[in-house]
């Protein structure tokens, strides 16, 4: 049973999807599962935000999609990262690192005083 959902802002979800796909191409179901596994069920995406996000990223040409045979033998739509998607991911990671670093600093300073 899914626990209380951790709401993910749209921009963060986009970044997470790009990150998952930077390892290897995957289909929508696979992405959702991997997000859940890696985050140890902290992050759960519902299809209502996953698929619009995938199509949005595809439209922005950060993802490329093709129909391929999946591990179960059925055809599934596999998404993979394009070079511009890779660049985008790098940028988002950088700004995420800066943001979380800044947040850390503030927490740190705040607890000291």
């Amino acid at each position: 049973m899914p626990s209380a959902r951790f709401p993910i802002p749209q921009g963060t979800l986009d970044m997470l999807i790009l990150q998952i796909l930077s390892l290897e191409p995957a289909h929508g179901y696979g992405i959702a599962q991997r997000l859940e596994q890696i985050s140890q069920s902290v992050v759960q995406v519902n299809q209502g935000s996953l698929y619009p996000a995938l199509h949005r990223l595809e439209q922005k040409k950060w993802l490329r999609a093709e129909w391929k045979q999946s591990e179960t033998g059925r055809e599934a739509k596999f998404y993979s990262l394009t070079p511009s998607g890779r660049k985008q991911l790098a940028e988002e990671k950088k700004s995420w690192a800066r943001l979380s670093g800044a947040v850390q600093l503030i927490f740190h300073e705040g607890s000291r005083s």
Partner: protein
Amino acid sequence: MRQLLNWFRRGNLERGLNRELGYHTDRRVSDLMLAGLPEPEARRQAMLEVGGLTQIQEEVRDVWLTRWLRDFLYDLRFSARSFPRSPWFAAAAVLSLALGIGATTAIYSLVDQVLLHALPVRQPERLVLIDWKGDQAANGFGSWNLMSYPICRDLQQQDRFFEGVLCRAATTVNLSTGAEPSPAAAELVSGSYFSVLGVSPALGRLVDSADDSTPGASPVVVLSYDFWKTQLAGAADVVGRKVLVNQNPMTVIGVAAPAFRGIDVGQVPSLWIPASMSAQALPGFKDQLDRRTRWMQVLGRLRQGITPGQAQAGLQPWFKAMLEEDTRRPGFPRITTERRQRFLASVLTLTPAPQGHSGLQRRMAQPLWVLFAATAVLLGLACLNVAGLFLARGSAREREIGTRLALGASRGRLGRQLLADSMLIALTGGLFGIALAPPAVKTLIAFLPRDTAANALQSSIDSRVLLFAFLISAVAGVLSGLAPALRAGRDPLISSLRQRAGTTLGGVRLRKAIVTVQIAFTLILVTGAALFVRTLTGLMAKGPGFATSSLVEFGIDPLRNGYSRTEASRLIRRIDSEIRASGSTQASAVASFPLLTGGSWNDPMTIQTDQRVTTDRDVNLNAVSPGFFATLGIGIAAGRDFNERDSLPVGRSGRRSAIISESFVKRYLRGRSPIGARIGVGSGPDAKPDLEVVGVVRDISYRGIRDESEQAYFPIFEGGDSGGTFYVRIRGRTETAFQSIRAIVRKADPALPVNSLRTVDEQVNRSLNTERMLATLSGAFSTLALLLSLVGLFGVMSFVVTRRTREIGIRLALGATGSSAIWLVLRDALTMIAAGAAIGLPCACALGRLVESQLFGVKPTDPFAIAAATLLLTVAAFGAALIPAYRASTVNPVDALRFD
């Protein structure tokens, strides 16, 4: 754009999405089953997790195509499917807008090409026209904004403001590229011309400053790309070829870039000649280096970041100093103190000139804007018409709209549907309009005057015009859909859902308001057309003041073929007497300047009777051969015509007698005997009034039919006036006379071109080109406008009658007569006509003032024109209203009451 593409492959996208989501659910189900759930339970669980499939699909669709755009496209599709069901409605609406958009696009194409389009040169927005405002104490020739060549040179030194300065003069030369010489339009240019404009050669090189350093030393020409392609078949070896310009050998050094057609859209040169060769290009001209001869237009390229205002202000100190210096130079004319002050008070003005300099622009600017305004009004009318049609259709669709409202559609959504309707109509109309435009532009271009130099106007639709047509189509779509869209669903739901048709008066008031505005617009256009038609007919009735039937004219210019002045005079005299002797002519005479071409030789004059007076404005001058007045049928009011003795040179001044026009006498010699008075050219203290007035003639039109200026004539004499326009009164057929005239000139000199051989009637017509264009087009536009508003009026009145059938039936049943039923309807129509006239007439009068300068012999508030326009409109509108009114009187009371 990508989103729009998605619209067309949305079927594919949908299928893909369904498969994708299906796969997801199935995988979830099988995973849950692996975890131990039974299949039905697993399926239920999976569906629960998904939430709503439809909602996901919707959200993904929003990614493919923004919501409003998607809705709009669905609306458009709905509209496109609904129009074939009411083809007459669609056809009427599309036709209205096609006419409006087509007319506006055609006129805009000309406005764009003549007035707005920047030259195809480097950064045209930095070009300025430099002009001298004030008295230049100089003589000159040419069109407008003229200065002397040395002043252009001085301006080139002002590099604080200018990156470069060029000067140019348009002329016609006799050009021979191997065969017989023929007239060709040429531009005399400073060496800086091409580099300042930033034009590159297509072949060889262009004129540069080395070509323009020493007068007479650089016999070179640059050909235009069009001339090279059409006249020389694009010969690859053209560079280095010898050509003859006015019989002077010159070398072709290059061909200019294909798109470059000079800086005057109305006069495209075939070749460019350096100004240093002006003595060869303009026979008899020796004043290239004279500071007091104004004959060239000067344009500058401002330095980056400098505004025309800054440059203008910055140039004045230098300019003032130059003026002071000029007065001390040897050769500065002796002028009155007063004139000297005017000279010293002169300033330089800089005006942005990204479109170059063109007489056509100057002449056509106002007529074109007037026509553009007229087409805008016409398009507005068409939009109103379509709005009226939509309102009519809207009330027929009331039940459909009511049903949709009842089912939960918002009013905004319905309004958008109606806007989609009108957009579709407008865009279709726009397509037809664009198809209509090129032939219309072609006709329009034919109205423009042209001579040796072609104009650069094209009838093809370029991307700018296409964009314009699209924009006005969209605007027309919004305008014509706005009223119906805002009205959509305004009526209470319940009334529109009621079974019975014809209870609400929905939209009638709005439609009446629309028709009233249409009538006002139409009245403005019809009044304008009446004014222009009266101007044209007035000018045609006035005529040039002499009999034009069986009168033909042609010009020759022997100086351009290498003749000396004396030889040229002798040649003209010989040709004149040959023509006289020919069997196909009655009379022949020569004038040194042609009539009715828009130009003239003009100067102020000094008159000596018992006192010395100078004219307060320029007198139009001409030199004519004996018999000129008799040939043209100009009456001699007093005194005598010139005779052969007047034409012989006497002493240094050459002339000894003059003939003046009646208006000259009226203005300057009132109450004195003109015969025997002495006059002379010039107004300064050094002017010598030494010509004896020997006759007074009736006034004729010189520059054009509107011209009512004072005139003076001198005798043509040998060695003096050496070009000429012949006026020949012919016998028999024009073609025969043309042939014999050509034969006579060819016999005299086979190499001499005959210029503008035509009947004087044709010349009169040419001189009225602008007036004819305004009258014809405004007439056509107002006819269209009238049709549109009559259709509008007819539509709304028919609608009213249908709506009031019951009421009229009851009235008739209760004993009302048929004529009172007619009156019931007509009263409505008359109110609209009267209200329209009350709005339209003051507007027409106010707008009339703006076109006053285009009118002749009629005031903008001309009561006849206004009365005629109002009467025409009222009668026509009355007629359009009479048909539905008559139908009202024939309503059968029984049928009308059984309507429910």
